[in-house]
């Protein structure tokens, strides 16, 4: 333990993106006294700052604005509160007793928090995680890194690009590169459906005549020093490349938009239970994790489709943290909520026994039409909620509300 004294606060929020900014506000509005907001970048806003395109704020502000504008509005609200903001500061460790180790140019110090909100966001899957064989040249970027280099650093990352994966950042970057005079040779998606939002396919690809090929992937990267081409092939039902369908696509840049992973390094250090389905913490309806007083929200909890939902989750997590810090959240018995047919995950995964009126977020495993989503008791078979959807897509986060009080384990399932 350090010789120096340990600072204290009521609620410490780690990360000041759309979720963390909202969490700090949520904590204040729920009455927390000393709120600390720690952000590793030099400015507030997180990834919003590099999202210069429109499409943010539709749910939170009822109008569509750019990422930086969205961040600015939230940051202005934060500035009006007596919230202690530390930027350029990274939390390196979190103990189960909620002691944070924070490093910044101002100093290295320990802070003990009565409650903690995790809002660290996510990171991108890499070339190596999807095991693309071939050479190791310059010119392979994850879409988010490319977005940083292009939008924040004004750098030209290539002249002819191929995009692998149809995640939203990849789609947005396809359009962005076209704006900058980079030829986008095509977007290839291994799945038979698009991973990103439909509006992005329309506005970013179709409007710019950028080819999109589903059921195809990059099977090899070529070029010794800089990317010279990629080999693209069709895949079969098991997603394995089909021999004989390979074709060489000349390019000097490959962008990868092949999935996001909640960045739970700190949660792991604190021994918090993580869900293999979301990559984020297992939480109850208050968004509390398996570590008492540690809450989670935004993309570090599960990957969201739009920033607004991450903010709403942030407000809720911040409010819960304030209640915990004030000693208003005694430990209670919980039931489990698990995904059933066609449901990838449902969140929260835990529910305090006897709670009523909780809304679940869920994602489906594949695109479906005319479905009924059912929340059912596992022991009694009782249907707690039922909702019809004309169409559901894996790219969209869906919601379903359960009104009655729940006394048993639940299953969320989707039926055609």
């Amino acid at each position, binding site marked *: 333990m350090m010789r120096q004294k340990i600072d204290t606060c009521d609620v410490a929020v780690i990360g000041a993106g759309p979720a963390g900014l909202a969490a700090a506000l949520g904590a204040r509005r729920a009455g927390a006294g000393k709120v600390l907001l720690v952000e590793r970048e030099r400015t507030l806003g997180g990834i919003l700052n590099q999202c210069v395109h429109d499409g943010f704020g539709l749910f939170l502000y009822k109008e569509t604005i750019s990422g930086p504008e969205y961040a600015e509005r939230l940051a202005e609200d934060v500035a009006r509160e007596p919230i202690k903001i530390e930027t350029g500061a990274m939390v390196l460790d979190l103990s189960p007793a909620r002691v944070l180790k924070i490093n910044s140019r101002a100093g290295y110090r320990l802070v003990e928090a009565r409650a903690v909100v995790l809002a660290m966001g996510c990171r991108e899957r*890499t070339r190596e*995680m999807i095991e693309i064989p071939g050479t190791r040249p310059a010119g392979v970027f994850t879409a988010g890194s490319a977005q940083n280099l292009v939008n924040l650093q004004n*750098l030209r990352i290539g002249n002819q690009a191929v995009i692998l994966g149809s995640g939203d950042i990849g789609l947005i970057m396809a359009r962005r590169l076209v704006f900058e005079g980079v030829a986008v040779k095509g977007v290839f998606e291994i799945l038979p459906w698009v991973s990103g939002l439909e509006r992005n396919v329309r506005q970013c690809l179709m409007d710019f005549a950028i080819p999109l090929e589903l059921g195809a992937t990059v099977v090899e990267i070529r070029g010794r020093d800089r990317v010279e081409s990629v080999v693209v092939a069709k895949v079969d039902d098991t997603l394995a490349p089909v021999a004989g369908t390979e074709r060489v696509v000349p390019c000097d840049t490959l962008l990868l938009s092949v999935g996001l992973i909640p960045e739970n390094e700190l949660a792991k250090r604190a021994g918090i239970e993580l869900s293999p389905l979301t990559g984020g913490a297992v939480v109850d309806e208050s968004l509390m994790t398996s570590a008492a007083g540690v809450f989670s929200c935004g993309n570090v909890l599960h990957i969201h489709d739009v920033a607004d939902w991450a903010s709403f989750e942030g407000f809720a997590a911040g409010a819960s943290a304030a209640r915990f810090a004030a000693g208003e959240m005694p430990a209670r018995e919980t039931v489990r909520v698990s995904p059933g047919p066609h449901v990838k995950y449902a969140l929260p995964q835990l529910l305090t026994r006897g709670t009523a009126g909780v809304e679940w977020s869920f994602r489906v495993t594949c695109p479906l039409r005319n479905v009924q989503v059912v929340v059912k008791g596992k022991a009694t078979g009782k249907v707690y909620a039922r909702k019809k959807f004309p169409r559901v897509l894996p790219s969209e986060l869906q919601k379903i509300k359960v009104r009655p009080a729940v006394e048993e384990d639940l299953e969320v399932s989707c039926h055609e």
Partner: protein
Amino acid sequence: MERPLSPTYDVVIIGGGVVGCAVLRELSRYDLRLLLLERESDLAEGISKGNSGVIHAGFNVPPRSLKARTNVAGLKLVYELASTLGVPHRKTGKLVVALADEDKPRLEELKAQGDRSGVPGLEIVDEAAIRRLEPLARGRWALWSPHTGIVSPYELTIALAECAAQNGAEVRLEAPVESVRVGNGLFRLATPTGEFAARRVVNCAGLFSDEVARLAGIDDFRIFPYRGEYLITDKDCGLRLAMPVYPVPPRDDPGLGIHITPTLEGNILLGPSAEPVGDKRDLATTREVAARLKAEAARLMPEIARVPFIHSYTGIRPKLFDPSGGDRFGDFIVEESKRKPGWISLAGIESPGLTAAPALAEMVVAMLGARMDLRLKSDFIPVRPHRKRFAALDDDERAGRVAADPGWGEMVCRCEHVTRAEVVAALRNPFGARTLDAVKRRTRCGMGRCQGGFCAPRIVEILQDEGVPVDRITKRGGGSRLFYGRLKG
């Protein structure tokens, strides 16, 4: 226009791999004017970065061979050398496992071979002992080698060069030798940045040692590149491998067989394969070999099947035997050319070259000393300036560092917890290596699970702060540029 004449060096070493740098450091003990020429944008860019990082005990090679002699001699030197230079290393011990009873005689052969070479402490152990020594390993019988260990090969290489530089040796990067003129007792080595005259040359050019030798009119050997692919697991894969685990060397494999090796940071390496390739710089990985690595590693350690990988890479071995030929050994070559006296070639230095490097360096010094007057310097500094990584510091040390220099308070790499101060120090290395890979090897930025997704844009900013123009920012020098200028915006 005449190129400016460079001073005459007593010894020029060609090749900045672990062998070249070990020779450079050993020679820097003496009152000599020294220069090392490296063709790539950093040291350790060839064989020395693409291997298993194992300190071998010396039982895999035939007794009395040069490989065996330098390996066993090197084993006695390399741990202390790594300690002196502050290079991460660990004596882990190693198991060579036989999965079936019928393979036990192969282990006994290896043990006998090692015993004859003077390898200390070898023992045949049974299944229960295997479980005790390495609970993750499987096998009926194993050869237990207590003195085998692991070291970071590129860190050792860089540390050797830094120590030598501190003792007055010069190093030039991006300086491929393109032609050699011999006359008046001097070798004149032409590079794109100038000509260098040398009284003696030590050719440590690894994969290219044959081509470099031919420039001097020496055509005594040929190097055949054999590619070896590796996979690396995430540190957080939940498995802590304590020591390297090797299979009984397969008879059809020109390497030691696909093995599993811990890194000092807690990853596990799988590999390498061994395929002859046509191109000495063909560092591609393939789907087929990746699948084979996983299958074969799972025989040694079944848990590996459910582990995520964060990186794969390829190394090339410089073999002296023709892939179509019958001889499957190909001993190290360390010899002075008879036709070109003063030119010493080190060739075919594949495994166990990393362990043998300090012994090879002593050999070279002895060869040079036989024909020139070597005077020890009184002020030789055996260590090198070394700073502990931020990630390895305790809380009080961290607080102290940040208070003294706020650069230690700015985190650049999230995964490996590297600070701006460390990145800046890496960029100010004495050799002028300023590529992303050079930063990675010196700091671990980009070696974590995000693979540089977050830190690369930060390092790009720092590179510009350090005066590197955008168009000269590269992954590893040459044509590996990252950017094509700035956008209009």
